Structure formats: structure tokens, C-alpha cells
């Protein structure tokens, strides 16, 4: 009954979201609609969608599993994921005011050689998105075997393809409007499901947190289950160097988590779906509230799973602990709750991958096609068509890669995506907004330097080769035991690659003889702080009037990019 119910609930979710997708298809006309949902979402709606984009299956299932198996250290992930939002809160209004649809809009605003900057931004957006996508889709394949109990290869492939196909449908047809509603529904479901689980767990212990922790610690049998050190920064007796490396690795992870969020493409593209900067601030505040409450609840999920299910049972189902939340659901509410939580997990994956595909196809169509190939003057209808097409291509690419990598443990890709976002995108964003001398060579050097460093360091790290289980002799890396070319000791590149990204951006600027236009910087700083001339939501007019009277936005006309950025178009209410 369990799997059938999960399946029914999931089909229900898909049916509802498909209806929304077709509604969105009928209401999507130009680039503003396709990329930014017409900039008509309220702060609260966009806040829910931001939270929906952010709370991936990796955090729902993964963190609960890490807490259940390694104790306190899973909570360190939760904290990093939340604290990062403060940086986002500080940047969101500036980026909303200065940009139009993508990060590249902000980066290229004040520089001379736009195509180079746009191309670099596209490269990093697509790379980060594809790595993150891959982690999520492979996770979907693993989830089906946990839920339905079938671990056949075919089941995994079918799941990956099905999730991928749905994601392509949402993004291709519905654009930002459909994707945002998918996120909102998913965020409500996920918050609801997690709250139900948390309340049920706590009620088992008379709502006494201390009792729950005590039961979890007793059940785990570890002495230090409630203290840091179970998983990150392990102390190796008699090997101070190894201990230090482990601790640096942990600090490196913490750095990437806290600095990566503000540069994640699917988060950045959501800044532009609200009418103005104030609504963008409201939406990030909503996201902070939702994400904070959610990550606090992961404590109850993880420790509750240890206390009520037991570590042996969790590890038996999945050695990485990804099944902990599902097993907890079964222990608390039987097959019905398991089915519900399973459907929520699928919805979670589906929503996150849609957001990622949308962000990367937006970047390809708007930045690469629109600004590099068409010199900033494509027809709006052309650009949307290219966006739809590239979402299909990226979706198929992700499906293909995920099917190939379906047996690998690719959870490290999430941390890698954060590290790449922090080392490639963050320096470019921050320096563009705040450094007068920053120029296009700096942007390009910073993006490629940060991106290259993080990928290279991971390839040379124990994640890819050379990490061997000392007891069984099995390989813990991506490549089989015996292959060993790891040079870099840390598994998380952030500690090196983030400063390196900043350094490249600064050196690239200082070493080039490119002149900067000081007025362009003044313009950016005036616009980003005051919102003068920003792209607003169209004033509340009926669609028909807008289409008839809106000379500037009607599809099919030449894309009035220049006039749009400089004169407020159709926005002054």
C-alpha cells in the first residue's frame, strides 16, 4: 500500500503542477514573463519560492541522515546553509535594482567588453547548475530504491528520466511562472511534512528536547554523539598533521557554505521575479524565516531517527543515511506518513532541478544568445524560443549524465557547487558593486580563476582518487582503489579556491591596461542603491491593454535593450 499511495500522491502533485504549467504557458509572452514571471510575485510568494529552490533533497534527506548517523555534525551543515542568507539579504536589493534577469546583467553593467564578461558568467552559471543538477538527479534515482524497495537498475533509470522529463516540461512550457508555483507548492508541502514529523517526534518525548537528545545519544552508543567532531574535523590519535588537515577541511566546507548561497544561479535569478527592491528584501526575509525553521527541525528529524529507528536500521537501509527521514516517518505514522513524506521528497527534487534548469537556460538565452551572439538586440520572441530550446538541451544533458553516474556517490557535488559559486560568482558580484576600479578583465579572470581552481582542486583531492578505507581496503573515492593522483589534501576546495577567486579578480583588474568609465560605476552605484531606472513590474493594467498599447514590450518588436535599461520602461506607476 505504501508505494502505491506515494505514487498516487506524487501523481496528484504532478497533475496540479501541470495544470499550473499550462496556465503559465498561456500567460507567458515576452522575456519578462518567461525569465522573471512578469516580475509580479509578491515578497511572500517569492520568499516561499526562494526557500523551495534552496531546500533540496540533499538538505532534507541528507542532513537528517548525517545527524542520525554522525550526530551533532549534521547540524553544522544546517547552520552554514542558514547563516549564508544574511549575505544574500545584503546583496539582494542592489542586484535587483541593477540587474534585469541574470547575474551577468549586474556584472556587465559597468564594463567595456561585455561579450567576454557575459560568456564567463554563462560558463560559471551553467557549470554550477549542471553539477548541482547532477547531484539532485542521481539522488532521485537513489530515492526510488529506498521508497519502493526496488533497487533494480531499470527503476533508477526510469526515475531519473521521469524526473528529468517533468523538469523539462515545467521549464520549457511554463518558464518562471510555472517554476515559481512549483517551488511554492513544494515549499508548503516540505514545511508541512517536516512540521508534522517534528511535532510527532517531540510528542514521543513529551516535548522535552533534552529527553529526545538523551534517547538519541543512548541509542547511538557513541560517547560524543551530541558534540561536534563525529564527522567533520576528526581527530586522529597520534597524527597531528592528519587532524589539522581534517579540521581545515571542515573550515573550508563552512566557508563555502556561508559564501556560496549568494552566488547560486537559481537563487540569483529569483531576485528578479518581484516588482521592486523592497519586495526582494521582503522575500529574502521570508526565506530566512522559512529556511531557519526548516533547518531547526532537521535536529528533531535526525536525532529523532536515531532515537526511534536506531542507527543499525538506518545504515542497513542506506549507508549514507539518506533513508533516515523516511524510516522515521514510517516509525511514527506507518505507511501513510511514509507515502506522504516520500511524495514530498520527490516534489522537492523535482522543484529544485526545475529551478536549476531555468536558471541555466535563462543565462544561455539571455546572456549568450541575446548579448554575445546577437549583440544585445535579439527579438524578444527569438530569445524566449532559444531559452525554451536550451532548457530542453540542458535537461537532456543532465538526464544523460545522471544516468551515467547513477551508481556513483555524487553527494560531494552539492558542496562543490557551493564552493564554485563562492569562488567564481561571489568575487565578481561583490567587486562589481563595490570596487570602483574593477573592470572586465577582472571579472573574467575572477570567474575563470575561481571556477577552474575549485574544479581542479576537487579533481586532485581525495574525493576523486586515493581515499581508501583503512579497514576493508575499498575505495572511498570516485575512482576505484589503486588509482591515486590526489595531491590536494582537502576534500572541500573553498579554503583555497575562494581567496584565489578574489585574488584573480583583483590581479586581473590591476594587471590589465583597460580603462574604466568612472561614470558607469557612479551610474551603477546610484541605480543599485536608489532603484532609479530599475526594471519594474508593469503597472497594473490589463494584459490586453498592455499588449495593444505597450510598444516597448510587445513581442516581435526589436528588443529595446538600451532604452529599457536607461529609461524606466512602463514602470512608473
Amino acid at each position, binding site marked *: 500500500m505504501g508505494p502505491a499511495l506515494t505514487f498516487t500522491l506524487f501523481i496528484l502533485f504532478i497533475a496540479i503542477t501541470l495544470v499550473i504549467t499550462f496556465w503559465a504557458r498561456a500567460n507567458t509572452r515576452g522575456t519578462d514573463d518567461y525569465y522573471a514571471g512578469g516580475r509580479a510575485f509578491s515578497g511572500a510568494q517569492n520568499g516561499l519560492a526562494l526557500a523551495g529552490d534552496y531546500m533540496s533533497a540533499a538538505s532534507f534527506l541528507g542532513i537528517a541522515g548525517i545527524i542520525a548517523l554522525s550526530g*551533532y555534525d549534521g547540524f553544522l551543515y544546517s547552520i552554514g546553509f542558514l547563516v549564508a542568507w544574511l549575505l544574500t539579504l545584503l546583496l539582494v536589493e542592489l542586484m535587483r535594482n541593477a540587474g534585469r534577469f541574470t547575474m551577468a546583467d549586474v556584472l556587465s553593467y559597468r564594463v567595456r567588453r561585455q561579450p567576454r564578461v557575459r560568456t564567463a558568467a554563462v560558463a560559471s552559471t551553467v557549470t554550477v547548475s549542471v553539477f548541482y543538477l547532477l547531484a539532485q538527479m542521481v539522488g532521485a534515482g537513489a530515492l526510488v530504491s529506498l521508497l519502493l524497495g526496488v533497487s533494480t537498475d531499470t527503476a533508477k533509470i526510469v526515475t531519473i528520466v521521469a524526473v528529468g522529463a517533468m523538469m523539462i516540461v515545467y521549464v520549457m512550457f511554463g518558464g518562471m511562472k510555472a517554476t515559481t508555483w512549483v517551488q511554492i507548492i513544494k515549499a508548503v508541502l516540505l514545511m508541512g511534512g517536516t512540521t508534522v514529523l517534528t511535532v510527532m517526534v517531540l510528542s514521543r518525548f513529551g516535548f522535552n528536547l533534552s529527553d529526545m537528545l538523551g534517547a538519541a545519544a543512548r541509542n547511538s552508543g557513541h560517547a560524543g554523539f551530541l558534540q561536534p567532531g563525529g564527522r567533520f574535523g576528526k581527530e586522529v590519535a597520534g597524527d597531528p598533521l592528519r587532524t589539522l588537515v581534517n579540521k581545515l577541511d571542515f573550515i573550508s566546507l563552512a566557508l563555502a557554505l556561508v559564501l556560496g548561497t549568494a552566488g547560486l544561479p537559481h537563487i540569483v535569478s529569483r531576485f528578479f521575479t518581484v516588482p521592486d527592491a523592497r519586495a526582494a528584501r521582503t522575500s529574502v526575509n521570508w526565506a530566512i524565516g522559512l529556511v531557519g525553521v526548516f533547518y531547526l527541525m532537521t535536529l528533531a528529524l535526525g536525532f529523532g531517527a536515531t532515537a526511534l529507528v536506531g542507527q543499525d536500521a538506518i545504515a542497513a537501509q542506506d549507508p549514507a543515511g539518506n533513508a533516515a527521514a523516511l524510516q522515521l516517518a514510517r516509525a511514527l505514522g506507518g505507511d501513510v506518513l511514509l507515502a506522504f513524506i516520500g511524495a514530498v521528497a520527490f516534489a522537492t527534487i523535482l522543484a529544485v532541478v526545475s529551478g536549476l534548469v531555468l536558471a541555466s537556460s535563462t543565462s544561455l538565452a539571455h546572456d549568450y544568445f541575446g548579448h554575445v551572439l546577437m549583440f544585445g538586440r535579439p527579438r524578444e520572441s527569438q530569445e524566449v524560443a532559444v531559452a525554451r530550446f536550451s532548457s530542453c538541451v540542458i535537461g537532456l544533458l543532465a538526464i544523460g549524465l545522471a544516468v551515467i553516474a547513477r551508481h556513483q556517490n555524487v553527494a560531494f557535488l552539492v558542496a562543490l557547487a557551493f564552493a564554485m559559486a563562492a569562488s567564481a560568482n561571489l568575487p565578481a558580484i561583490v567587486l562589481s558593486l563595490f570596487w570602483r576600479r574593477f573592470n572586465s578583465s577582472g571579472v573574467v579572470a575572477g570567474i575563470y580563476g575561481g571556477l577552474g581552481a575549485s574544479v581542479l582542486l576537487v579533481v586532485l583531492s581525495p574525493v576523486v582518487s586515493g581515499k581508501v578505507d583503512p579497514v576493508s581496503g575499498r575505495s572511498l573515492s570516485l575512482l576505484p582503489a589503486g588509482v591515486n593522483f590526489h595531491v590536494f589534501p582537502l576534500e572541500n576546495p573553498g579554503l583555497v579556491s575562494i581567496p584565489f577567486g578574489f585574488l584573480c579578480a583583483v590581479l586581473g583588474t590591476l594587471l590589465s591596461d583597460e580603462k574604466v568609465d568612472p561614470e558607469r560605476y557612479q551610474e551603477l552605484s546610484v541605480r543599485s542603491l536608489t532603484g532609479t531606472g530599475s526594471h519594474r513590474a508593469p503597472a497594473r493594467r490589463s494584459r490586453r491593454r498592455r499588449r495593444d498599447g505597450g510598444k516597448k514590450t510587445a513581442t516581435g518588436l526589436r528588443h529595446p*535593450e538600451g532604452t529599457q535599461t536607461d529609461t*524606466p520602461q512602463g514602470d512608473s506607476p
Partner: protein
Amino acid sequence: MGEARHRSAGAPRGWYAGLAQDRRFRLLRTRFYRLAIGIVASFLGWYFLYIWLSAFAREFMARPVVGNINVALLLGVLQFVSTFALAWRYSRYARRMLDPLSEQLREEAAAMEAEREHAERLAAERQRIESWAPPRRNAAHRRTREGRS
């Protein structure tokens, strides 16, 4: 290409430089920078203090506070509390000290922009009237095209 190349279509040179020199804008910028630096310093400092304690001061973190709740858990939950508090503080400050200034500047800029556009339209119209010449027979098609634009 794109936006950078087409500025001439919108604001004239010096327009934004003038705004950037405005006292109110400089006040706005100073306030924002001060606020942002304060918030970044406090949350990053506090977060990395917590991370450092988790990595290097484990005996301290393991100390029990109430029942099974130890220092590590307490500090972890305090990270949540501080995040909420800083977000609230930023939003309150922005609402009170930044929004009124930016709104004022934005509205003034929009008004000036509208005035400028109006003046440009007038000048263009004037140009068109002044350069009007009596119709010649062989230029009939040109006249109709002009009339439409």
C-alpha cells in the same frame, strides 16, 4: 554591446555623476556601507568563532548546560537566533533610514527624467515644424512616410 553601448539613448552624460554627488545620495551610501560592513563583520565573525570552537575547542563545546543540552547545541541554536535578529535589524534600519532617502532620490530622478524627455519631445517637434517645407510634387511618398512617424 547591449546596455553599455546604448546609454546615449537614455540619460545624458553627467546625469548619474550629478546624482552621485547629491548629498542625500552620499548619505544613503555611507549609511548602507556602514550597516553592511557592521552586519557582515558581526555574522561572519560570530559564525567563524562558532566554527573555530567546533573544530578546536571540543571540550568546551561538550560541556552540558541543561540536561542533555550542551554548549555546542546552545551555540548552534544561538546562530539561528542571531541570524533572525540580524535580518530583522537590517530590515528595520533599511526601512527607517535607507528607504525614505532612496525613495526621494528615485522620485526626483523620475521627475527630472520626465521633464527632460518632455523637453526633448518639444525640441524634436519644433525641429520638425521649422524644417517643414511646402510639399513638392515628386516627394509625395516621402511626405506620407514622415506624416506617419
